[in-house]
């Protein structure tokens, strides 16, 4: 049976602490008020989590994978000077989303073009539960390819599963005198890697890669 926890839009109420605050002292609380508060809070939890995580500006790519166009053999140790785009996009908090408590999707949004339709430009998004050597054989990954000479959108989307998430403890030192309550806890997160290749494998036939952005979006 489906459940409804939010109206899906922010519902305005009079200013908090103002004369018309619906939650001011001695004001009867009715069910509608609490439904609105719960709806708004649920919406904020969801939308605030779906945030941009990383971006980079344009560049050029011309090196192929070790086996042509096979992302499982992508050259993760390659450098831009050798025509490879391989980046660590950071380790980021990811929290479960919605009534079904599923992880959000990780999206790599890019724009790109090849110099000739004979070639393919590929992008790879790889997600691991913790930082480490990017390993496309075991990690959750997605790819997108483009073989057009006009610059256009490329999107690689990873559908996260619970096993793709790592658990991380945050334990800063207690501060103040006397020390305040430790602000310690645990949260789930993912380590994200980005790559791009071009099957031309020649610096004389470079693919153009426009801006790249990584962000979270709601699960499908």
């Amino acid at each position, binding site marked *: 049976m489906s459940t409804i926890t939010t109206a899906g839009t922010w519902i305005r109420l009079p200013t908090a602490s103002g004369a018309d605050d619906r939650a001011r002292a001695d004001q009867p609380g009715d069910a509608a008020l609490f*439904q609105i508060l719960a709806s708004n809070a649920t919406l904020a939890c969801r939308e605030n989590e779906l945030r*941009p995580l*990383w971006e980079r500006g344009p560049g050029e790519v011309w090196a192929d994978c070790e086996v042509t166009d096979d992302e499982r053999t992508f050259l993760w140790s390659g450098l831009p000077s050798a025509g490879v785009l391989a980046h660590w996009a950071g380790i980021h908090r990811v929290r479960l989303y919605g009534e079904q408590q599923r992880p959000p999707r990780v999206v790599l949004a890019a724009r790109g073009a090849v110099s000739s339709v004979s070639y393919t430009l590929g992008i790879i998004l790889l997600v691991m539960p913790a930082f480490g050597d990017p390993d496309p054989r075991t990690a959750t990954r997605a790819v997108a390819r483009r073989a057009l000479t006009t610059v256009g959108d490329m999107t690689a989307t990873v559908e996260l599963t619970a096993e793709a998430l790592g658990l991380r403890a945050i334990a800063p030192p207690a501060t103040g005198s006397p020390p305040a309550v430790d602000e310690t806890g645990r949260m789930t997160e993912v380590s994200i890697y980005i790559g791009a290749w071009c099957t031309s494998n020649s610096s004389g036939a470079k693919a153009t890669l426009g801006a790249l952005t990584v962000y979270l979006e709601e699960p499908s």
Partner: protein
Amino acid sequence: MTTRPRTLGTPRLEARTFAVGVTAASSHPSGLADLANDAASGHPGQRMTVGRLAATGVYSTHWIPTEVPRWLRVEALFTSSAVTTANGVTLKLQVDDGSFTVVYTDPEIPAGLQGDVPHISFYSTSTPSRLGAGQRVTWLLDIDALVAAGLSLSAAVWRFQWSAVVTSPGEVELITVDEVPRFVVDSAESFGQLPGSYLPRGIVADGTPAGLQRLWATVRTGLMLGLRTYHSTVRPEADAWLCTSTSFVSFGGSDEESAGVPAKHRVRPRAMRPGVDTRVKYLIRYKLAGAVALDTATVRLTTGAGNYDVTLTDVSGAWAESAFTTAYLLAGAEDTIEWKALVSNGASTLHVIARPVFDYPEA
């Protein structure tokens, strides 16, 4: 001040379980209190990003101060462009709010960000993964300590200046800063619901700052201070984006997806009101070289919703921040951000090194 620990979680409160009637309260007020706490401080979204650095440089990133996070987490990965463990990178961080500066030698800046130690990759023939064998370092910046040192949470923005000394083949793969969600509720803040106000079979505690009076304020914090950073590309001061054109042009090769066409950065707008354009604001860190009195420069942010210009008037030749400029992202699943600029006097040169775009929620 009263504080209580909390664990991260988003309670599910189904609309149909709320009682119907004019005097009925929530059927599960403590759940609603937890949900409000999570909305306010469980999903903070601002970040700062400095991409790959292969050369020494000074970079600036920006953060809108809010009382939501207690800690900022800095993650950095130090790599090498050659299979060797020789050489590395030293980092100095200083933070200013426009009127006060915490310098890198101050105790509020953690060791490792004081230019005190080189960060050296472990990339070698025996650990031949450039990224995986990099040295990853995590620091936590204590916002309360930075405020106690003199920075103000009331300032419009804090600037984080990163001075990296890179000795080849050492490199910085990434520096990223994000806001740590809250693991305590603190009555000294303007939001937060203390669990003790909602006891089983008890009357909900009333009065400032406890209980229902803070409920709406807490939920609303999730809208007004749950900010996300849409865009955070930066350049070093010595290699800025440049503009000398008197008509709008893109910033050049490092910011173009093809000749003369600015890069389109694809972003997902925060859809608090689906169908309504999302309000954002941006600032520019810049200097105008070779300019004289009354010269100006203009930077244009273009989104799917329109063009949004800021006029830059500081002709001193020193680095400066523009005022925040309001813009909108087109309602929908995705929009794009692109940049152009012009100068009023073609003999001057506009240098831009940071252009962050933030949420600017409408109440």
